[in-house]
């Protein structure tokens, strides 16, 4: 007797027979799975091909790569047909380092290398220890010595002469280094049970987040001198830095607050039960968990910040974008600003893309 089941014992649906060339198979599933899809692919391929061909013609085939010093006639000859990459070797020292004394430009260059090394080391999870903080302090001190000089036989360079990539990196790094603790304090303040502290934090965060960074920078450049006692003046770069720190603090506070909310109540109660004080409770129990929760959004905020430092152009501070814009004021090279902007965009892109890749890899490891 065989048991009669209501499910006939059908063979399991076999996978589609894998015949033919794997390339053709890939094309069929990914580009030509249906008629409308096929039409779309053909149209896109045509547009893409046209775009790539005209870019290659402009950017490579017809481009001028090198010219004799300060002679843009070769570029002018191909204007409209080809790119003038010759402007980059001509101007890169100014774009990268601004008006820093020419013979001393190895110092900002070394600072940039130090910054990048510092960022790279900070992304290694194995190095997330107390020593990393000391390393940061040491490296930032070293960078200050390099940039200012005045000791160890290095000639002093006032910060009025700083410019280009180091200024962008300084604004972003110090903005985050000081904005981060400020953000933690404000986030704690916003969740505090004490009404006066809570409302002060709310007003600060909402006021800063409600207005554009441009207006804060204006405030730093125009109103700050009014705020200070007469005769007391702070350097323009430092004023912009303060505005960026205040701005960063408000945005980071909101991200960190999200992390604080994600820490389960039991953790707070357990810390209270151990008799920890408010500060020890947050330092030892709550904050480590809260910040771990929000590392990916924190990195995204860092990216936003790095890009936002370019706004100091509006108040005339020589960051990377401002030096680029100034480099093309030179009448001989005025018409080739697109090439310079592409060069600077590539630098910004490299930094931001690296950070966003890192953020994505963090998300992937934390989701596991």
């Amino acid at each position: 007797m065989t048991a009669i089941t209501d499910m006939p014992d059908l063979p399991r649906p076999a996978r589609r027979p894998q015949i033919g060339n794997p390339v053709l198979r890939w094309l069929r599933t990914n580009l030509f799975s249906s008629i409308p899809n096929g039409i779309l692919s053909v149209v896109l391929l045509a547009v893409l091909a046209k775009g790539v061909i005209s870019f290659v013609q402009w950017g490579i085939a017809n481009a001028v790569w090198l010219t004799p010093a300060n002679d843009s006639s070769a570029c002018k000859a191909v204007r409209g047909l080809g790119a003038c990459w010759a402007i980059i070797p001509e101007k890169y020292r100014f774009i990268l380092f601004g008006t820093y004394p020419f013979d001393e430009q190895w110092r900002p260059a070394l600072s940039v290398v130090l910054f990048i090394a510092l960022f790279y080391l900070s992304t290694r999870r194995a190095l997330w220890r107390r020593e990393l903080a000391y390393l940061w302090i040491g490296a930032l001190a070293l960078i200050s010595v390099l940039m200012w000089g005045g000791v160890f036989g290095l000639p002093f360079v006032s910060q009025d002469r700083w410019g280009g990539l180091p200024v962008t990196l300084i604004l972003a790094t110090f903005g985050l280094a000081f904005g981060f603790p400020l953000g933690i304090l404000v986030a704690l303040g916003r969740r505090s049970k004490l009404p006066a502290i809570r409302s002060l934090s709310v007003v600060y965060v909402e006021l800063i987040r409600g207005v554009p960074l441009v207006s804060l920078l204006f405030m730093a450049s125009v109103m700050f001198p009014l705020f200070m006692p007469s005769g007391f003046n702070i350097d323009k770069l430092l004023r912009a830095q303060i505005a960026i720190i205040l701005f960063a603090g408000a945005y980071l506070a909101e991200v960190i607050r999200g992390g604080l909310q994600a820490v389960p109540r039991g953790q707070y109660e357990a810390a209270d039960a151990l008799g920890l004080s408010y500060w020890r409770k947050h330092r030892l129990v709550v904050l480590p968990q809260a910040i771990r929760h929000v590392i990916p959004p924190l990195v995204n905020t860092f990216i936003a910040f790095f890009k936002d430092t370019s706004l100091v152009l509006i108040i005339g501070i020589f960051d990377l974008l401002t030096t680029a814009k100034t480099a093309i004021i030179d009448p001989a090279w005025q018409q080739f600003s697109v090439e310079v902007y592409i060069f600077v965009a590539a630098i910004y892109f490299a930094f931001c893309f690296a950070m966003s890749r890192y953020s994505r890899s963090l998300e992937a490891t934390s989701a596991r």
Partner: protein
Amino acid sequence: MTSDDPRPPPRRGFFGALGPNELKGLFWQVLVVGIAVAVIAFLWSNTVTNLSARRITTGFSFLGREAGMPIADSLLAYNPRDSYLWAFVVGVANTLRVAVIGVVLATILGTLIGISRLSANWLLSRLAAVYVEVLRDIPLLLQLLFWYVLMQALPAARAAWRPVEGVFLSNRGLILPAIPLGSTQLWVLGTAVLGCAAFLVIQRWLVAQQMRDGKPRPAWPFALGLIVVLPAAVSLSLGVSWKIEWPELRGFNFVGGLTLAPEYFALLIALVTYTSAFIAEIVRSGIQSVPRGQWDAASALGLRRSFMLRQIILPQALRVIVPPMTSQYLNLTKNSSLAVAIGYQDVVSVANTTLNQTGQAIEAISLIMAVFLTISLGISFFMNWFNARIALSER
């Protein structure tokens, strides 16, 4: 249970009823507020001294004076003889003009790109991913300067590009054919808007009826009547002309049509493309957040695809999409202040000129802040209301 010791009486602080914790809290609050007040008072007294030393009178009385600044491109009638107050209003109108249109276009473009990223077509999804990655990782100000340089490099009016008949692209900006809007045309459009509102009310009522007896009632006759027939009737009875005005090249410039100045056009393109990259990511993650089972369940019920998308998928996706979308809209509005870098006269640019001309720094900057805080709060309120409407109604 031998321990019958009476608990020690709680220690009384100096303030009697306050326990040690409350006392500590009070101490911290007094300290922090005290520091805040001291800092503000210090800055305030310095400011007052500095202002009197520079002979600048504080107050908003300067707003009544003649502005004398040119505003090239404005929605409202303006000439340099008008007051600073009116210049500010024109600036606010310019900010709103770029922000409102930017939000609408960025939403449309961002949604399209977000959907493209999920397309089964490999090429389309890769292209969308590249678009998002490149635009997100380059500062907006750099993109804005780039677009502006491209605008200036366009041919002169005489040699303007003509991608489509009646559309001209030159270094004077983008010139489009337009329908001149007078008061009669606005009446007709107003009727159409009212018709839309009435239709929404009727549609809700029809759905309520269907809930009661289960009989479907068609809504389209109402839509046709209220949104198409009614405005058409008004238009016919008033004899409104809807003639399209085609731009023409006369001499060195264009006559007629709608002109988007290069500054405005560059700012709009930069804001829309930049924000659309962020919106695309929001839309993509919103759609991906709807579990696959919801699609399967809806198709198992035999629902049509459009109905499924509208009634099952979209309401769930929107819950994830709306809150981050709000902050993108706010960002776009705040980013429109970058206009000052290319000389489009939005409110920040007008305030900056005012500040340079009059020295009224505090007033000018507080006006900027007031305008942006108002706009931000307005958008937040609207989006919170919308969010509450679509939020999950738990049983």
